[in-house]
Each structure stands twice: as C-alpha cells, then as structure tokens.
C-alpha cells in the first residue's frame, strides 16, 4: 500500500477538466459507470471518497479499489465575425484513484484514499486569439485522505477524516493582446508552482431504513491552495523600463477548491441497484484569480463563479455470477456566469452518459471497466473583464463547444 501511494505521488498526474469549473468527476470506476453516483451505494472501497460512513457496511474485511481513466478532451472555439476557428490540443489525462478499507471490528472500519477531484489541463495553440487570457494551463490537486467509519446501528453510521491536499499549477498566457518585443514576439508570463499543500476534511452519514434502501450524506470541506513564492517567468518583453523586466520572479496566488455537499439514495431490487445523487458545489468562493508578482505587478482576474448543482442517476444489473453491468446519466450545471466565460475553463452545462462492466475473476478479484462521454452544450459566451494594454476593460468571446470521452479500467480486491 505504501509503495502504491508513493507511486501515485511520484507519477506526474495530468488532470483534465470535464465537469463544471475545474471539478473532475472520476473518483472510482464503478461509480463512473453509474453516473458517478455513490453516496448511498455500498459496493466497494470507493466509498472512501463517496461516503466514508458506508465503509463499515462492506461485507469483507479488506477492500481495495484501484483505477485509472484515459481522458480525451477537446474544446473548439469559433467567432464568425472575426473568422476565428481554434481547437485545443490537450494531452490525454490519466487520473488515478486508490482506495482501501479495513474492518477493524464489527462497528468500526478505517480506510485510506488517494484521488484527484480537482484539476484542469487546457492547451490552446500558442498566441491564439484568446492568448491574453490563456495559452495553456495545467492544474492538479491530489487528495490524500485517511477515514474512519463507525456503525452506530444496522440502520445508521457515520464516517469522515482529514484531507491532505498537494497541488501544482503551470499557467502561461500573453501579457496582452499586443505587447511584443522589437522582433514582434509576443510577451508572455508563465507561473509555475508545485507542492502547494493544505488541509481539509470530509464527513459522511448513512441511514438504512430497510435492508434494501439506503440514504447517504457527505460533505467535503473547502480547501484554499495558497501558492506563496512560486516561480513566475516573464519572457519576450521589450527591453524597456515601461514594462516588466524579462526573467524569473516570484508570485503569490490563491486557488480555492470548493466545498461539495452530496445527498442521495439507493434502492436494491433483486439483481438491480438504482442510485440517485445530488451534488451541490460551493463555487461562489471563487471570486477572483489574483496573482501578485514579486516584481510589483499584479494580475486581477474576476471569476465570480456561482454555486452549482449536479444531478446524477445510476443503475447496476447483475447479469450473471461473473458479469455486472452498469449505466448512468448526469446533468452538470456550470458555475460560470455570463460575461465570465474564460477559455482557461471553457465549460458550459453538460450531459454525461456513462456505462461499464465488472468481470469477477475470482471471488476476491474483479476487473472494472467504465467509460463516460460528456457533452457540453454549444454556447455563445464571452469574458468581459479582460484588461487592455491601455488599462481599459476588453471583451473576448465567441462560440465554444467541448466534449470529453474517457474509458477507464480498475481492479477491486476483497478479502
């Protein structure tokens, strides 16, 4: 386990946004297949993330779930008036998750999870039409969480634990629409920081009114990642005292990882499980991305996100002794308000379609496969709070459309 954990920390994990904002819904292969529901589903160690309170109802003493997805995302942008058509060139993201739980006695279980609920990678062609807002961005946050779960009765349990987050950011954009050096090369700024850490917590509760009906609740706290003294590189500025000097300086910035509340239910009927989840994501904490540079310059970028909701539905069917089939759907609302649609997180309301299968190899080991296809609605949107080179407020917009497709594979081990 220790080895695995180290491996995860050392692997350079590339994250992709494929939910509203920079929330990433890939926290378990079985859950993904069921529309990423799970607050009231007692199925595997994925509960460490979805609802630690449920761990104590798992039948086996040791449960391990490991999974990874390959995420292909694509964002296209066009502006008919200006004849602009652009497409992102994002690399394939491979988010991982590892969960384990151990039943200490019949009223307490402990668990550990490593997962990546927030991240974003968007790569536009360098110097594209919106390059004053972003050329490329790569955000990643790895959550490491020990949990403990207590069974208060057969009907009720609680659980929770602290969360340790370590995050990284790499963000490049041009200084303005027009600033160049004498040769016409666009002036740009890169900020880079890693190992930015902080603490948070989560708590969950599960209520089982009957043998086949469960209700779940879970809450994950907000965590603010504060980058203090990260590296900022100013490049290709003209040789002038009127602009920042080229070279490396520091930067300070804060990026909030919003709190999330989930309530849901599941109902088991013969070989079927039906699940419904509702997520509330408290994005209103993301008011502005303010970057203060060591050379005295500042970059203020209003975001003004609003709280948003996700509605999830999933179903599981045990087809044979060996094969379990899953499917799901969810509706994910964007936290981005009109006029604040920045191409660094170009996400609109979306519909997610999911499916998957588990193949039981032995009584202890199962292979879980999942996929999801996320379709973002086409939207005419703009970011109206850009700062022009003369200090005015400028706008950048057009039509955005994006999608994500992710096949995933995992293992579930029970003992």
């Amino acid at each position, binding site marked *: 386990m220790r080895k695995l954990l180290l491996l995860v920390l050392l692997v350079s994990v590339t994250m992709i946004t494929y939910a509203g904002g920079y929330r990433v819904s890939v926290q378990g292969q079985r859950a993904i297949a069921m529309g990423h529901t799970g607050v009231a589903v007692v199925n595997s160690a994925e509960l460490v993330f979805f609802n630690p309170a449920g761990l104590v109802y798992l039948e086996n003493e040791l449960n391990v779930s490991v999974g990874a997805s390959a995420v*292909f995302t*694509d*964002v*296209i942008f*066009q*502006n*008919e*008036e*200006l*004849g*602009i*058509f652009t497409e992102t060139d994002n690399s394939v993201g491979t988010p991982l998750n590892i969960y384990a739980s151990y039943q200490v006695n019949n009223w307490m279980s402990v668990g550990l999870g490593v997962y990546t609920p927030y991240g974003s990678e968007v790569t536009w062609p360098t110097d594209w*039409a919106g390059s004053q807002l972003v050329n490329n961005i790569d955000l990643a946050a790895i959550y490491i969480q020990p949990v403990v779960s207590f069974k208060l009765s057969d009907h009720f349990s609680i659980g929770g634990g602290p969360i340790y987050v370590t995050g990284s950011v790499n963000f490049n954009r041009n200084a303005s*629409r*027009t*600033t*160049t050096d*004498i*040769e*016409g090369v666009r002036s740009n700024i890169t900020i880079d920081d890693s190992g930015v850490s902080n603490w948070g917590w989560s708590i969950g509760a599960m209520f089982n009114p009957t043998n086949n009906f469960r209700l779940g609740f879970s809450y994950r706290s907000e965590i603010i990642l504060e980058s203090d003294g990260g590296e900022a590189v100013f490049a290709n500025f*003209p*040789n*002038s*005292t*009127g*602009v920042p000097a080229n070279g490396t300086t520091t930067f300070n910035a804060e990026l909030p990882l919003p709190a999330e509340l989930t309530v849901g239910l599941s109902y088991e009927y013969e070989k079927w499980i039906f699940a419904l989840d509702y997520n509330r994501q408290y994005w209103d904490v993301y008011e502005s991305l303010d970057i203060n540079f060591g050379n005295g310059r500042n970059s203020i970028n209003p975001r003004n996100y609003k709280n948003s909701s996700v509605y999830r539905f999933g179903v599981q069917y045990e087809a044979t002794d060996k094969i379990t089939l899953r499917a799901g759907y969810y509706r994910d609302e964007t936290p981005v308000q009109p006029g604040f649609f920045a191409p660094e997180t170009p996400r609109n309301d979306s519909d997610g379609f999911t499916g998957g299968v588990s193949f039981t190899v032995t009584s202890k080991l199962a292979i879980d496969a999942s*996929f999801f*296809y996320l*379709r*973002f609605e*086409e939207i005419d949107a703009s970011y109206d709070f*850009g*700062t*022009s*080179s*003369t200090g*005015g*407020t*400028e*706008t950048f917009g057009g*039509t955005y*459309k*994006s*999608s*994500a*497709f992710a*096949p995933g594979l995992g293992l579930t081990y029970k003992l």
Partner: protein
Amino acid sequence: MIRKNIKYLAILALGLVACEPEFDNPIDEAGTYTSGEADFSNFVALGNSLTAGFADGALYITGQENSYPNILSQQFAFAGGGEFTQPLMADNVGGFSNDPVNFPPRFVLVFDADANPVGPATFTGAAPSTDFTTNLGSSFNNMGVPGAKSYHLAAPGYGNAAGVSAGLANPYYARFASSATSTVIEDAVAQNPTFFSLWIGNNDILSYATSGGVGMDHNVTGEQNPQNYGPNDITNSTTFAGVYSQLINGLTANGAKGVVLNLPSVTSLPFFTTVPYAPLSPLDSSFGPQIPTLNGVYSQLNIAFTFLDVPERSIEFSTTAASAVVIKDESLADITDNLSMILAGTFGSLAPVIAAQFGQVRQATAEDLLVLSSSRVIGQLNADRVAELTMLGLPQEMAAQFSVTGVSLPLEDQYVLIPQEQTAIENARMAFNATISGLAIANGLAFYDVASVLEQASNEGIPINGGAITSTFVSGGGFSLDGVHPTPRANALVTNGVLDAIQATYGSVLPRVDPADYGTVTLSNEVN
C-alpha cells in the same frame, strides 16, 4: 473472449472519433464567407508607404506584416484569396545599410527609470541590414513604395538603384523593380491581378506639408509636367487626374475589380497637431527669467511696427501664461528696409542685421501649425546663427541673445504651416479626392472614404474593444512614432473599412478583424 475484447476496443475507437465536438454552424464550412462578384485569387496592392506598411519612420518586417493589404489578404483567404507576398525587409530595425543617414532605423518609445514615457527615439539596438541594391524580383503582391507620389508609379527608372543616391530613384522600389527602366504600374499589371487596391496621392500633398510648405504649389504655378517638380511641391490636380486615370485604366484592363481609397487630411496628423503654437512657458527656468529682457528688446521693435502701420506684428511674452513662438511668415510684406531705418536710432550700424531678421515676422496664432520636428529646435540656441551674427559684427553675447529659435530667432518656414499653406494643401486634396471618387464610380470600383475615418479619430476618437483610437501622438493608438504613418491598429481599422466598401460594391461577405488585436507603438530603451 479475446475476440470479444477486440470488438469492444473497436467500439471504443469509434467512440473516440464520434465524440469530437462539432459546431451547429461551423464557419470553416463552405458558404459562410463568399467573395461575391470579386475574385481575390490574385490580389495586388498599389500605393505608397501606407500600402507598404511603413511605420515609426521606417520600413521593417513586423510593420509590413501589419500593412493594411496584408491584413486584408488574410481576410480574402476566407473566400478564395491566394498567397500574398511582400518584399520584406531584412530585419525589424528598418533603414538601409547602404544609406543609414537618409534612411535611418525606426523610432521606438523610450521610458525613464520611473516607467514614465520620455518620447520617441531612433532604435540603436542593431544596425540596418537591408541593402537596397539587392533585388528580390518583381513579382510581389504588395507593390507599395514608401515615398511614392501619384506620378512616380508611372515613372520609368523610379526603381533604378543607381539613381538612388542622386535622388532620382526610390530605394524601396529598387528592391523589387523588374528593371532599371520599369514602372511600378507595369510591374503590377504584369502580375495579372484579379483584384487590386490603390491608395496613392498622399505624398502629392504630404511632403509639402511636412516640409512646412517650403515647396511650390503647382496648382498656382500651373506647371503640369512632374519632371519639373521638386520633392516638396504640390502636384497639379490636372496632372494627378491624368496619372490616376492611367493607373486605373492599367489595372482594370484585364477586367480586374478593385478598391480605391481617398486621401485623409494631412493637417490632422499628429505630426502637425502635437506641438502647440504657444509652447513657451514662463515656468521654464531657461525662458521665464529672460522674459523682461526679451520684452524690453521687443518693445523697441513693436514701436517700429506701430510706426510702420503693422502693429499686429507686435511681439510680447506673457509672464503668467504660455506664449506663442515667433515665426517667419513669408506671406507678410517684407518691411526690412523701413525697419532698418527706424532701428538705426537704437541699434546703430547693426540695425540692418536686426531688421533683416524681423522683416517678415509675427507671433504664431492658433491657426498656424508647427511641425513635429520643431519641438527639437524651439527654445534652443542656434549655434550657426550665433556664428553668422558674430560675423556680421554683433558682439558674442548679443548674437546669442538673437539666436534662440522661436524666441528671438524666428522659426523658419520649414517648421510652420501658415494658414495660406494649409489652404493650398486642402484645396489640392479636395481636387484629388474628387478625381478618386469620380473614377471609382465611373469604373464601378469599391471606394473607401478613409478621410472621414481620420476625421473621426482626430475629433471624438473611434471606440474599439477595450478603449478608443485617437490621433493623439504616442498615446492615441492610431499613429506610429513618426506622427504621420498609422499603427498596425489603425491599419486594422482601415482593413475593416475597406472590407465594408468591398461588401457594398461586390457583395463579398468576409470576416472583419478586431483592431484591439493589433499593436500600436513599440517600447525599447535600446537607443544608446
């Protein structure tokens, strides 16, 4: 089992392809943009520095890349436009390696240590590396030749590199002229353009204006043969009409369509509006303390002016407000002789020298325009004049007293456009513009009234995304650091106007550009 897996893999792969996002109305699909009745497959641009992409007092690569025809060609590419080639300079320094004195590098904007703008200065970060005797071949889509007047486009030998040093030929055209005797229009027509742009005639009045009206106005002299013209003269409007008609006939001979642009007012350029007529502040430590002495001397002259019935020529500097500069107005009656006799009582044998300096002099008024280059001499001691006056017998100290430019030494003609000169320029421009719009209508060409756009820029400004474009020097965004030539941003604005004109005439539907995406002036402190 394996076979089954392969099937699943295939489905996955298909899924990947099917999941690519696609717009409901993608603009890269045929039909979004159309060329209308025009054919943009071979677009050739004709004109002067405004077509070439000249800016900041020089021609250099990024300026050329932001020339209005080059931006236009990128929009034409959405509806059948072909490749657009330009005779690119060798660097982003500008100027010519083999004549850096007459063709110096570009201006850049200098900032001081407190990050405040100081002003334009010549870039010295690198030496010019373009040699105008290197001929690049004659086939370029951008045939703009900086400095060209209307008749130059039809003048054989205008591209003869051997004639450059004698001032008989143009080094920019020499770089791509097909021969030592070719003309710009022949070389353009030889390319068989399907579409052309023509913006010419600006220099037919501009060089007269930037030289402060030292040249001749051939609408007054009646001279119609351009071979008898000096470099700073105003072209006769009949000559202009003849040449313009010849150019249009040549370009449309094979049925090509095109767009023509008229001539904006030159006197609204920052080159003429930046230096105020009354720049002499009493707060200036080198001028303020001198005011009583100066007024004392001028009071002697003013008595003479009154006596000679020209009291309006009286000169006096205010101790509380900025004063107008003293200028030579060649339209005034020359009163040197009479002045000399009157001043004899005060200045004795030196009277003729003093009188000669003030025979056609007055203080400037709001109607006079001072050229940008005057800012470098106003209030400065003219050492040449000091030497001259000393030779003529003035004591050294007195010679210096009468040699402060614009204060005690009148600003010469070349620094001032007096109202009569402005009228000559404006009359010629009106006549040229009547020719341009008339020929555009007669030939069914698209016509863009760029003159009205400059007027708007110099009055209320033109709103753009994130600000406005005005013709204020340095900060307005419309004009480069030479005060005459447009910035890339202004070229973008011109491109949009040209596209409007083309759409109105030929029904071509093309995307516009966002002027905010185009730069203004370049900063650099590499100026020695």
